[in-house]
């Protein structure tokens, strides 16, 4: 597994996937640039942020097979790092007077705050993960839910450093789409690199055949922990950028709503593959935009036809249940996007020794 030659060939064989996904994202960015309207720009930024979250979630959930309801907590940790480090010191003093002095005086650019957020979230992923990864699958899932609630409860009540449930305003808003595109590309390539690393392969072996993997010397809790920390870092980065995209954070921004949307994107796309994670975001974002548009009201002739509020979430939930019922492996199944010619030669290469 750790043999450099074989590892290199895995990388060469699978590099098409992140490259294709990256090109898809770049294409979205160019469309946004061509359209040039402000709300559309914001929509594209939102899609890139969801890509970061869902890819971050996939690094753990997809590779380990353990569902996590708690990853949005890491995004929340990251979002508050952005609030702590990028708001002007004067404004911070008003909304969060309890911050230590050195943090109060800190004012760093958004990209540095995103990096710091990734590190902070990774640290907490390491702390929580070293306990949670000892649990079996289902129990671990529920415990991640408890982790989410715990983080939410702390951030909703610690008013001197998080302003409790009121919004923290004054985070510099970044309106250009490029930083979000770059971050989404970083997330996709990091997820791919992890997936083909020895740790990623070991974890997937443990997901599919736990007994055989353990017997082959895979330390399952440790393999899960590595994935948990990496995915926590990606979520933290995404959370900080999310804060920069809207300029405010509240604890409930990073709670059940976002958890539900990111999980449904992962499930609909297919949690078995990185392509599934990215395509799930693109497909469901389109659906959500359509439902939002219908909720806002469409004029047909002289009458305005509008769906009542809440239909968007109900629609998402129903789609998610139907996909789970009829295509439990998601739209992508467990396949990844790859170049057709390459895939064909690969199959041939596998078959030829037999004939």
């Amino acid at each position, binding site marked *: 597994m750790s043999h450099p030659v074989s590892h290199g060939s895995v990388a060469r064989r699978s590099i098409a996937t992140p490259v294709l996904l990256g090109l898809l994202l770049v294409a979205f960015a160019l469309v946004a640039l061509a359209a040039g309207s402000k709300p559309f720009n914001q929509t594209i930024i939102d899609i890139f942020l969801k890509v970061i979250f869902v890819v971050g979630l996939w690094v753990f959930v997809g590779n380990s*097979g*353990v*569902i996590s*309801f708690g990853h949005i907590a890491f995004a929340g940790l990251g979002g508050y790092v952005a609030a702590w480090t990028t708001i002007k010191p004067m404004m911070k003093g008003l909304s969060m007077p309890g911050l230590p002095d050195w943090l109060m005086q800190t004012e760093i650019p958004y990209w540095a705050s995103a990096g710091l957020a990734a590190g902070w979230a990774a640290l907490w992923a390491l702390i*929580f993960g070293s*306990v*949670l990864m*000892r*649990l*079996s*699958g*289902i*129990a671990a*899932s*529920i*415990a991640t*839910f*408890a*982790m989410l*609630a*715990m983080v939410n*409860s*702390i951030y909703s*009540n*610690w008013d001197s450093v998080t302003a409790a449930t009121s919004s923290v305003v004054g985070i510099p808003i970044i309106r250009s789409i490029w930083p979000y595109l770059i971050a989404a590309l970083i997330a996709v390539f990091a997820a791919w690199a992890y997936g083909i690393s020895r740790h990623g392969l070991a974890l997937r072996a443990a997901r599919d055949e*736990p*007994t055989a993997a*353990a017997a082959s010397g895979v330390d*399952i809790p440790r393999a899960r922990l590595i994935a948990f920390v990496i995915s926590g870092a990606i979520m933290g980065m995404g959370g900080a950028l999310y804060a920069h995209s809207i300029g405010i954070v509240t604890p409930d921004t990073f709670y*059940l709503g976002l958890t*539900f949307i990111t*999980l*449904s994107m992962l*499930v609909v796309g297919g949690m078995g593959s990185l392509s599934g994670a990215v395509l799930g975001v693109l497909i469901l974002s389109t659906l959500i935009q359509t439902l939002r548009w219908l909720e806002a009201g469409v004029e047909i002739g002289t009458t305005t036809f509008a769906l*009542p*509020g*809440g*239909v968007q*979430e*109900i629609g*998402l*939930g*129903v789609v*998610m*249940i139907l996909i*789970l*019922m009829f295509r*439990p492996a998601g739209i992508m199944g467990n396949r990844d996007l790859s170049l057709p010619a390459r895939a064909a030669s690969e199959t041939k290469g596998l078959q030829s020794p037999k004939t």
Partner: protein
Amino acid sequence: MGSLLQVIFDALSLGSLYALGALGIALIFGVMRLVNFAHGDVIAASVFALLWPSVDAVAIIFAGNLPWFLLIPFVLAIGAGLSVASEAVVFRRFRRTNPATMMIASFALGFVIRYFLLMLFSSRPKSISLLPSLSQPVEILGARIPLLQIITIAVTMVVLFGLTAFLRRTRFGLEMRAAAENFTMARMLGVRANRVIMGAFALSGALAAAIALILGSQTGTANIMMGANVMLMAFIATVIGGMGSLAGAVLAGFLLGAIATVMQVILPPDARAFRDAFVYGAVILVLIFRPQGLLSARGTRERV
């Protein structure tokens, strides 16, 4: 003395809520390995069944005007009905899938129910007066205990003993326990799967409705998120108690209630807002030492 008694009653009544919730989740987990994330939303839906749909701030009481001896069975029936319907419409199709898939499906179903309530009733909490005669305090040994607390504890005890007798003494209960232990084997020995699973869902839904009645009369409000907190604690109780163990779930529910109440008393006032965070922290500590839970059920242990 009085204040100690007060603490004991607080702990028992909070623990009762958690235990009833944990029981509802463990019953379904036992027969079909489903972690039912929609449970909390069944609780909320049972309360809203008392109101007439409207997005106005003032609640229009509808079924809530029934006399108590009709109101209680009505709410229980709504909870059981909704729960059975969710089995028939959604979960039945997931029997053969793995637990993780079912869990996400239930999460999605919970969202559908919650936003359906939001569509009908809006997200604003509404004040209702449900069984108002229960909020008067009673004096016991110098402590003023709300009558509702005593009734909550008494009802929980009755439910627990009733359920134990039902599971141990009746044929249906025996079938249910057999199904929880080894579903395939039980089916081969003539246990009718659909009946047992339907029964578990009906019982679980009725338990959710019982929680809804207690919460509704305790807080005097109906809120689409009202089931979320109890459900989370109930989940944690099932994990601590050992997944699939009914006794473990009940025990852990009471334990969580006791921890939360004691924390409320001993924590300094500044830290009281973080009570739940401390409880979750305590849970994580328990799991370090007993990752399989306090009482782990046979047949649910993962072998690797």
